[in-house]
C-alpha cells in the first residue's frame, strides 16, 4: 500500500483545484473495493434483505435496480451504516471496504460515514448555510479550524468536480436553498465529495429532477467515476444502462418477504442476456 500521508492531505499542499486526485499521483488500488458477503439486514425481527453477496470494483459505477420495496435502498444504506438511524436495525454478514469489515467489532459508524459518502433522493443542502458553507460542512467537522485559503481550495475543487463551479462562483455566500433542483443536487454531490470519501452512494439521485438536470448529473457521474467508487440505486433502467459498468438486480417475492439480490453482472450482459428469468422479465418491462 502506498502511504502518501504527507503531501496530499486536505488542501494544504494541493494548491491547484484543477488537479484531480488521480493526477496527484495517488493510485486508487484495491483499497476502494467493496466486498459484501452474505449480508442479512434486519429491522428488529423483520428480515428486510437476505443473503446479498457482491463485489463492487473500485472506480466503477454499479447500478442497483429492481421493483419498489425490494430492498435496494435498504441495502445501499447498509453500506454506510445509515440504516442504523432507525431503532432496532442490525445486520449479519460482512461488508468490507479495502479489506476492512465495516461492521467489525469496535468500528465506529461515524468513521464509516466519513469514508462512504451519500447523496440522497431529494436534494438536501442545509437551508441556513451559504453555498460555500454547505460544501465545506463535512470538512469543517473533520478538520475543525481551517485557514480560509485552505477551505477556499477545497470548496473550489469540490464544486469544479461537481460541474457547479462556473454557475455559482460569484455567489458562494448566497443560501444553498436558492438554487434550482439540479444545482442543489450537484451541491450535495460537491458536499459529499469534499470530504474525499472512498465510495459514493447515490440513492435515486435524479428521481426528483427534470430530464436536463438528470442528464447533467449522469455526465457528472461518469466523470466522478475516475476518482470514486460509485453505487447508485435507480428506478430508471435506461439510466442504469447509460451510466453503469455493472448492474445488480434486486427482487422480492411478495410483501413481508425479504428482498434478495437475484443477479449482478456487467451492464451490457444484464440488459441483453441475463442469466435469470426474473431479471429478463424485469428489464424487458414485463413487471415492475
Amino acid at each position, binding site marked *: 500500500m502506498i502511504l502518501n500521508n504527507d503531501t496530499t492531505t486536505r488542501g494544504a499542499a494541493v494548491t491547484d483545484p484543477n488537479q484531480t486526485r488521480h493526477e496527484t499521483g495517488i493510485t486508487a488500488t484495491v483499497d476502494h473495493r467493496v466486498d459484501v458477503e452474505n449480508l442479512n439486514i434486519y429491522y428488529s425481527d423483520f428480515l428486510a434483505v437476505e443473503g446479498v453477496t457482491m463485489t463492487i470494483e473500485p472506480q466503477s459505477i454499479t447500478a442497483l435496480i429492481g421493483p419498489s420495496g425490494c430492498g435496494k435502498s435498504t441495502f445501499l444504506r447498509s453500506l454506510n451504516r445509515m440504516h442504523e438511524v432507525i431503532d432496532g436495525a442490525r445486520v449479519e454478514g460482512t461488508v468490507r471496504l479495502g479489506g476492512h469489515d465495516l461492521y467489525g467489532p469496535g468500528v*465506529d459508524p461515524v468513521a464509516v460515514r466519513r469514508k462512504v459518502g451519500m447523496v440522497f433522493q431529494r436534494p438536501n443542502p442545509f437551508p441556513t448555510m451559504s453555498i460555500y458553507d454547505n460544501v465545506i460542512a463535512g470538512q469543517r467537522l473533520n478538520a475543525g479550524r481551517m485557514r480560509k485559503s485552505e477551505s477556499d481550495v477545497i470548496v473550489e475543487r469540490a464544486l469544479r468536480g461537481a460541474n457547479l463551479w462556473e454557475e455559482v462562483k460569484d455567489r458562494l455566500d448566497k443560501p444553498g436553498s436558492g438554487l434550482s433542483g439540479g444545482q442543489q443536487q450537484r451541491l450535495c454531490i460537491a458536499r459529499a465529495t469534499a470530504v474525499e470519501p472512498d465510495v459514493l452512494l447515490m440513492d435515486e439521485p435524479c428521481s426528483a429532477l427534470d430530464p436536463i438536470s438528470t442528464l447533467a448529473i449522469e455526465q457528472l457521474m461518469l466523470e466522478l467515476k475516475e476518482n470514486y467508487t460509485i453505487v447508485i440505486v435507480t428506478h430508471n433502467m435506461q439510466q442504469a444502462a447509460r451510466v453503469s459498468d455493472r448492474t445488480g438486480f434486486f427482487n422480492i417475492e411478495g410483501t413481508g418477504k425479504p428482498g434478495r439480490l437475484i443477479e449482478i453482472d456487467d451492464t451490457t450482459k444484464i440488459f441483453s442476456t441475463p442469466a435469470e428469468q426474473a431479471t429478463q422479465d424485469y428489464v424487458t418491462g414485463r413487471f415492475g
Partner: protein
Amino acid sequence: MSATMTTRPDRNPGADVDELVRPRISRALHTSIITASVLVALAVNALLGDVKWGWVVMLAAPVYLVAIRVAARLIEDRRQATDRTVTAIVTMSFLLVMMPLISVFWTVISEGAARLDGTFLSGTMRLTPEELMSQRDGAAVGGAYHAMMGTLIITGLAAAIAVPLGLFTAIYLVEYGRGKLARAITTMVDVMTGIPSIVAGLFAYALFIIVFGPGSRTGVAGGVALSVLMTPVVVRSAEEMLKLVPNELREASYALGVPKWKTIVKVVLPTAIAGILTGITLAIARVIGETAPLLVAAGLAQDTNYNPFDGRMTSLPVFTYYQYVQPGVPTEAGVQRAWAAALMLVIIVAVLFTLARVLARVLRPKGLQ
C-alpha cells in the same frame, strides 16, 4: 488504507492506519467513571464537613463532566469528547428539571393527604365557636366544599362563554374568513393569549362595576375573567383541528348539494370533535387553577354561595391562597387545609390532562393525521 483520506490533526502520525476501528469507552468503563465521580464528591464532602447528599450530587456532576471529557480525549478523539460532554450536559439538565417537578408532587401529596378527609370535602369555613375552640385543641375542622362548588360554578360559566365563542370564532377563521377581518381576529386572538391573568380579573371587575357597582365581587365576574383566558386557547386548538380535516371531505359534501352550514355541522365538526374536545379539556385545565383573576373579581367567602350574581364566591385556588396566608389560630390548621386544597387542585388538573390525552387517542377517527 488510501492515503488520500484526510488525516485528522490530533492523531499520531505513525499510529494504526485503519481509521475505521477506533477505541471507544466501553460501557463498563463509563460506569466506573460515573461511580468514581460520585466517590470523589463523597470524599471531598466528608473532608470538608458533614456529608449532605445534595452537595454530593452537585459536586459529582462537574467532576463527571471533567472526567468524561478527559477520558474521551485520551481514549477516543476530540469530536467524541465534545459529543460525550454535550450528552452529559443535556442529560443533567433534564434530571435537574425533574427535581422540582418531583418535589412539588411529593410535597403536595405528603402534606395534603393528611387533611383530605370527609370534613374537608363536605364542610365550609363557616365555623361555629365550638368548632373554632376545638381547632385550637388540634381538631380538624372546616372544609373546602364551598370552594369546590365555587370552582365548579365559575369554571362552568367560563366554559359556557368560552366554548361557543371560541368554537365559532375558529369556524369563522377556518371555514369562512379571508381578508382583513380574519387577519385582525387572528392577531387579536394571539394578543388575548398573552393577557396576564390578573389583568383579565381587573377587566372583569371593572366591567361589572357598571352592573353591580364598585366594590362588588361576584361569581359571574370570575366566570367572565376566566373566559377571557380560556377563549383564545379554545380558538387555537379548535382552529388546528378544523384545519386538519381534509378538504376532500368538504368538497364531497358540497358535491352532493349539501349547504355549507350543514357541511360544517354534520361533516367537519364530527371529524374534528376529538381534537376539539381535547382542546376544551386542556383549556379548562389551564383556567381551573387560576387564582389571581378570581381573587380580584370573585373574592373570598366563608360559606357556600350558589348564586353567581350575588355576592362573593370562593374558588379552590383562592381558598388555598387565603388558608395559607391567613391561616387563623393555630396556623397549622389553616396551612393543612391549604395543602389539602392544593392536592385537590393538582389531582383535578392531572385528571383533566389525562382525560384529554385519552380522548385524543380514543376518539381520533382512523385515517386522520
